[in-house]
Structure formats: structure tokens, C-alpha cells
């Protein structure tokens, strides 16, 4: 027997309505991965603001930007760049590390 799609349609409209919003310009911060280090290792961003991190991997090997605190996980292929959006976030420190070279590739996003 066919069920009514009413609940599915209602939930979908509820999900989609808030998406119709124009985003403001996003500040961009460049970060390098070199010799398995994040440069800079401390990234300062303003409170409650979305920021675009452009990660340039200057190493031959892949690296993964990993942060459970930021809810981000992104593999940056060697000699390529990748984009990670963080925020808007409340003030605080959010550590991140390179999953493939965790002993050296360490850093934190400082929100203030």
C-alpha cells in the first residue's frame, strides 16, 4: 500500500527554506604545508565569522587536515591546494593536525 508523501514533503520544505539566503563575502587566509609543518601553525580568525582557508601543500606527499573540534577532515594532495571553510565559531582554540604526519604537522585555529 502506498503511503502518503505528505510528511516527506513537509520535512523537505522545512529543511530547504532556510537555505535561501545569500552568503556574505568570506575572508580568505592562506596556509602552507611545508616539510610536514603547517605555516602558520596558529591561525587567528574573528569570532562568529566564516573564513576560507586555502591550504597549499608544498610537499610531494599528501596530507590530511584533521580536526574533530572544527568538524573538518580534508586530504590535500601533494603539490596541490585545497579549500577548507571554518566557522562561524565562538571564541576559543580549536586544534588541528596532519593525519599523515601528526608528529610534526600540528596547529590551532584561534578565534577571538
Amino acid at each position, binding site marked *: 500500500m502506498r503511503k502518503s508523501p505528505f510528511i516527506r514533503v513537509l520535512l523537505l520544505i522545512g529543511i*530547504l527554506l532556510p537555505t535561501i539566503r545569500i552568503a556574505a563575502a568570506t575572508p580568505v587566509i592562506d596556509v602552507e604545508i611545508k616539510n610536514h609543518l603547517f605555516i602558520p601553525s596558529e591561525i587567528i580568525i574573528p569570532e562568529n565569522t566564516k573564513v576560507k582557508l586555502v591550504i597549499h601543500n608544498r610537499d610531494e606527499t599528501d596530507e590530511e587536515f584533521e580536526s574533530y573540534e572544527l568538524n573538518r577532515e580534508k586530504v590535500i594532495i601533494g603539490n596541490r591546494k585545497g579549500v577548507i571553510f571554518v566557522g562561524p565559531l565562538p571564541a576559543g582554540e580549536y586544534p588541528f593536525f596532519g*593525519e599523515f604526519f601528526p608528529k610534526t604537522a600540528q596547529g590551532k585555529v584561534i578565534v577571538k
Partner: protein
Amino acid sequence: MNSYKYCLKNSLILLSALIVFLMSLPLYADGASGGTFIDKVYHPYVQPHEREIEWRGTYKKDSELRNQDNAQRHKLAYAQSFNDRWMGELYLVGEKNRQKDFKLASVELEALWQITEQGEYDYDWGMLFEAEHETEEHISEISSALLIEREWGKWVGTANLYLIYEWGSHIDNELETAMALQGRYRLSRQLEPAIEFYSSDTSEGIGPVLLGTIKLGGRKQIRWEAGVITGLDNETADETWKFSIEFEF
């Protein structure tokens, strides 16, 4: 670049509107295949150079639905990303129930497309494309799903909105819609509680799920899930236990 993003956003809104429209159509469906939709909630993200082996299983309990009671479904899959936007997965699906011994029931092919970067917009977007052939029942199915995810602090909400076309020699060809929702609390990397809701033309259920990730160093990690979905109608098993384990490398 801005005009590209404007077009992308408008395209996604139009696509969503199209799915809303299709979901509201009085599509014919007799549920002849009787397949369960309770399985997995997909997330709209792909990592480059990722490979994984996955096992998923469901086990149903319902003393009144004899054809579903003690029914098991097992999926074994291999997945590989092609770049940072696309990932493909091949499944072998085996089933067992009171009438049938365990045997290969279907073969599935899946492609996951990450459309937007995580956090780029208020919602993250992706699409899933699936093709399935049930070897014994001679039923084929193609489907596409819009994958939407959003985080609110430590909470993450995910929606999978499906449009499914099914055909075969023993069933009426039919177009179906389905939806899977997940609300997940990011307690810790090892353990995240969630609640999942499934609704399709032939089944509806809700229940708690636990998820987690075990890091093994480098690219290697294990993702696991376990949960029980309670049927909300007479056609869905009272309990559908679901388990999955993925080894990424």
C-alpha cells in the same frame, strides 16, 4: 567565480524544488519488491585517494510479519574515490530469511558526488546515484538522492532525499520517493549518538544509532555504526537492527 557560485546555488534550489514537486506527485507504487529501505544515511563528502572495504548488515524481528521475521541482509562493498568530488562503490548483497537460505540477492553500483565544500554554504550538498539488479527476482532499480547536511554547534543534521525507478518482469514498473534523516551529536570521535528516521513507500521507522571512528594511523581508520530502528507501521518490521563497519585505507 561569484557568478558560478550564484548559478550553483540557484541550480541546487531548483533541483530541490523539482524533488519536492516529484515527491508530491501521486506516483503509483504497489511495493511489489518489498525491499527494505532502512539501511544507511549518506553524507555528502568525498576525500581524494580514499579506498574502503565495507560490511553492512540488517536483522529484522517481527513475530507478526512472518516474511520479515529473522530476515538478514548483508552487504559487502569496495569503494574508491576518483578525485576530490567523486567516489564509486560496488556492493554484493546477500539475503537470508525463513523461506530462503543465504544467497547472493543483488549487485549494486553507487556513485557519490560532493557538490559543495563542507561549510561553504549554510548547508552542504551532494548527490548519490545508484543502480541495482536483484539477481533472483529479476528486478532492476536506478535511483538518485539529494544529500544535504548542516551542523549546529555539536549537532549535525543530514537528509537523503531519494527518487527511485524500479522495473522488472514480475512487477509493475514504478517511481518511488524515499527519505532518510539523521540527527547526530558529536560527543567524541570514538562515540557519537544519533537518531535516524526512514520513510519510503513500503517502510517507515525511527530509532537510535551509535557511530564512531577508530584511528589506526595514516590513512587507515575504522568507522562503525550500530542501531535499532523501530517500525512505525504494520508493513515495517518491529525492529530492524543495523550494523556496519568500514575499513578505510
